[in-house]
C-alpha cells in the first residue's frame, strides 16, 4: 500500500531568501494531506559541501504542534549569527529551511543566504594577499 500523498509548501515573508546574521525570518508553512500528519517541523540546516564529502548540521528545529490534515501555519524564527553562506575553491556553505512531515520525512525546502550584506561571501575572488 502506498503512503498517503501529502502536499507541502513553504513561503517566506516578502519572498526574500537572503538575510543578515541574527535576522528574524517569518513565513507560512502549508500542507494538505488525506490524514493529519503525526508531526510537522521546521528544520534550519546548513550544509558544508567539500571537494569529496559534506557536513550537514541541523542548526534549529521548530516543532509545529498538533498538525491538522490541511493547514496554513505562520511561523517566525531568529536566524543564527553564523556560519555565513559562502562559496570557495574547495568548500561551499549553503543554508536550507525545510518543512518536514513526520513520520515519512516528506519535505519542502527553501534555500537561504545568511551573510553580512545578505550576499554569500565569495572566497574565490578574495584569493589575494592583503
Amino acid at each position, binding site marked *: 500500500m502506498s503512503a498517503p500523498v501529502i502536499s507541502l509548501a513553504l513561503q517566506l515573508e516578502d519572498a526574500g531568501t537572503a538575510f543578515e*546574521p*541574527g535576522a528574524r525570518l517569518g513565513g507560512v508553512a502549508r500542507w494538505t494531506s488525506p490524514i493529519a500528519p503525526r508531526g510537522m517541523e521546521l528544520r534550519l540546516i546548513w550544509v*558544508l*559541501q*567539500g*571537494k*569529496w*564529502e*559534506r*557536513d550537514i*548540521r541541523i542548526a534549529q528545529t521548530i516543532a509545529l504542534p498538533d498538525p491538522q490534515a490541511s493547514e496554513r501555519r505562520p511561523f517566525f524564527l531568529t536566524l543564527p*549569527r*553564523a*556560519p*555565513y553562506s*559562502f562559496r*570557495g*575553491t*574547495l*568548500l561551499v*556553505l549553503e543554508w536550507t529551511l525545510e518543512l518536514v512531515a513526520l513520520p515519512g520525512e516528506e519535505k519542502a525546502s527553501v534555500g537561504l543566504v545568511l*551573510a*553580512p*550584506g545578505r550576499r554569500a*561571501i565569495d*572566497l*574565490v575572488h*578574495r*584569493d*589575494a*594577499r*592583503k
Partner: protein
Amino acid sequence: MTSNASASPVPRPLKARSHSSFFARVRRLLRRAAPHARVVAPAEVHLGERLVVDWRLDHGGREVTNVSVTLVGSEVSRRRTSARTGITVVSETHPFLTYELDRCMPDRGARGSQGQGSVVLTAPAVPTLAGKVNEIAWAIVVEAAFQATAIWRNEFPVVVLPVRS
C-alpha cells in the same frame, strides 16, 4: 563602558599546530636545532576587529635571512577512505586570504628575531568553522627562509568569530 562579554580576549602564548612527536624529538637531537617560535596573541578575534600579534623566533643555529608572519584563512576539505588496514584521511587545503602581519630581515649571524604586527580583519570574510570532515581554519603562520629557500614554518591556530552584534 565596555562589558566583559564584548571585551577582547587577553593575549597569551598560542600553541603551535604541529606537536613534536617522540621521533621528531629524536631526529632533532641528531641534527642541528630547528628554529622555534613563540607567538603571543588573543586566541579569538571577531571579524572587523584588530588582531595584535607579538612574535619571537629563536633561529636555533640556522642562518635566517627573512622572517614573515602572516594571518592565513584556509579552506580544508577532507576525504575518509576505509580499508582493512584502517581509515585514511586525505586532505586538501586552499588559503583564501593572507594578511601580512610583519616581516623582517635579521642581521647576519643573529640568534633570533622578534617583532609585532597587527591587522584589522576586514569583513566580509568567513569565521572559523569546523565540520566533521571539512573546515575553515585560521592561523598565524611564521616562516623563516635563507635567501629564497624556505627552511622552517609553523602555524599557530586562532579562532575567528563572526562580526560582533
